[in-house]
């Protein structure tokens, strides 16, 4: 009984982390249709930045924010000066982002070496809380909390603010959006920066939990991909549900079929593709 409960808590924590990762991917890939194969690299580089800031003795949250900010700048530069010139051309965009993914991976290997880094969570978030006669590691609950905060903030931003309305208009019909005075190009750069920053933030949040090591980038990228395909492209609710589904599947799969845990992760994605190609919460594009 307690084993299952522990697994469930871990699953929810991983789900929260996956949502932080894939929310940005959902914006960039799902909403703007940019096949950003650097998303896992943003996650890893962000985590490395966070580790370095923590090493310098910075506060945990400050490190996470700074790392997000740095990644927003890097992502913004790549989007503005290289990706933007390839608007609407899928293959070149894929190759460019893939090229940067390889560059980032190798640079990380050079700078941070091949040894894994695992920063400890901030002192006040260590330890465990007791509830229902059981102990839960506090830091994992904090990850879930952060995911919920980000989910609500994104939902409010996209669905309820003027900025969100402008983004949606820019995605649905760029020429008309331009006609009514929306600076679509700048807006898209902004969304890309936001997505990159979220990935880096997720990386810092995940560092004490997963640790940071070479190869983390291409481990996280498919996960973000599964979540977005599963939930439906462009749907934040879909990303949220998909994240927790994958979180559960990963932990329970790991416990029950350790050899095949990684493969099991992809099964729901394949099922969804066959039965409901637009994803669980996706809308059909006409």
């Amino acid at each position, binding site marked *: 009984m307690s084993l299952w409960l522990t697994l469930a808590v871990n699953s929810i924590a991983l789900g929260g982390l996956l949502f932080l990762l894939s929310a940005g991917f959902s914006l960039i890939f799902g909403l703007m249709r940019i*096949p950003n194969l650097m998303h896992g690299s943003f996650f890893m580089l962000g985590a490395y930045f966070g580790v370095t800031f923590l090493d310098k003795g910075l506060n945990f949250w400050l490190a996470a924010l700074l790392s997000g900010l740095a990644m927003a700048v890097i992502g913004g530069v790549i989007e503005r000066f*290289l990706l933007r010139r390839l608007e609407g051309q899928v293959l070149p965009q*894929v*190759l460019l982002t893939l090229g940067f993914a390889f560059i980032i991976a190798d640079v990380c290997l050079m700078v941070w070496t091949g040894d894994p880094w695992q920063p400890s969570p901030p002192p006040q978030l260590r330890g465990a809380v007791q509830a229902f006669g059981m102990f839960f590691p506090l830091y994992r609950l904090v990850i879930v909390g952060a995911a919920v905060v980000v989910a609500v903030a994104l939902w409010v931003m996209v669905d309820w603010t003027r900025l969100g309305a402008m983004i949606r208009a820019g995605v649905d019909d760029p020429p008309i959006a331009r006609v009514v005075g929306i600076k679509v190009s700048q807006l898209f750069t902004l969304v890309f920066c936001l997505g990159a920053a979220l990935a880096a933030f997720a990386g810092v949040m995940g560092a004490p939990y997963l640790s940071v090591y070479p190869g983390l980038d291409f481990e996280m990228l498919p996960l973000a991909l599964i979540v977005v395909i599963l939930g439906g492209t462009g749907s934040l609710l879909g990303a949220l549900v998909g994240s927790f589904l994958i979180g559960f599947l990963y932990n329970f799969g790991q416990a029950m079929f350790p050899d*095949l845990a*990684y493969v099991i992760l992809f099964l729901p994605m394949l099922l969804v*593709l066959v039965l409901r190609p637009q994803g669980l919460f996706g809308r059909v594009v006409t």
Partner: protein
Amino acid sequence: MSRLRHAAIAVALLLLATLPVWVGNPYYINVASQILLFAVFALALNVLVGYGGLVSLGHAGLFAIAGYAAALMLQAGHGHFAADLAAIVVTLAASAVFAVLALRSTGIGFLMITLALGQIIWGIAYRWASLTNGDNGVNVTTRPAPFGISLANAHSFYFATLIAFLLAVATMAVFVRSPFGASLRGTRDQARRMNALGYNVWLIRFLAILFSGFWTGVSGILFIYYNQFISPQVSALTASAEVLLMVISGGTATLLGPIAGAAIVVIMKNVVSAYIERWNLVLGVVFVIIISFMPEGLVPGTVRLWRWGWQALQARLNGTAVRPVGERSP
């Protein structure tokens, strides 16, 4: 033109057939074998990327399936013929599964689904240790000896690879000129019109993926005989990206492009690894440069830049301005 072309083909064949004689050093003969076997792989991927407009980022998965199937059969004590036949059958079956799932979508969706499928293969190769021996890989102890000719040395292996390569090029040439090749190009350019004309777009793409899968399987088998070893690294995303680089660096939808691309990438990899261990960095930088400056591929791109430079020079001599030559129209 046609006579020139025939002469060029004859010279190329002669050079390829006599390569071991004038190269001599087994190391370089092995590099040539590598180029040929990766050229087969690149040609196979080009069927989808170039002629079908379907960009697959999971082809290393199919390549690895063929390699693992053959290696595991050999390890279980089966003969070479049975192992290779089984590898091809398994690869074709896997290609069919890839096709059914990935053809739920085209364009960016196709690419992402093949990427995910490739990762599944990687996951099996890496984590399912009881089957694939995990990170330690599988050894292939012997090379086959078709018709009593042992392929154990570099020379004979080169000729075997050359025969497979020539067969691949020949089937590609037939395929490009065939009605099937024309209909595949039709589905790439005007899928909806092809559908309206009564073509079964899905079936055409499905068969193209099987055709591509077959030659991918052949190159996978050649690869394990060449290296006599296979590990999960072969199925990694990096490997899929590498072969995609071969296709696009040479120029897609041409017969010569992927071959030139395979030569460029294999030589670059061998040369670069001799000096620095940062192959991935070089790979990434090459990707970014190609996409930013010559999106149509290295070979056509170099020609365009060269022509532009030449015209600019002439224009300067004549005292008139010239605009850069635009990119190739689609």
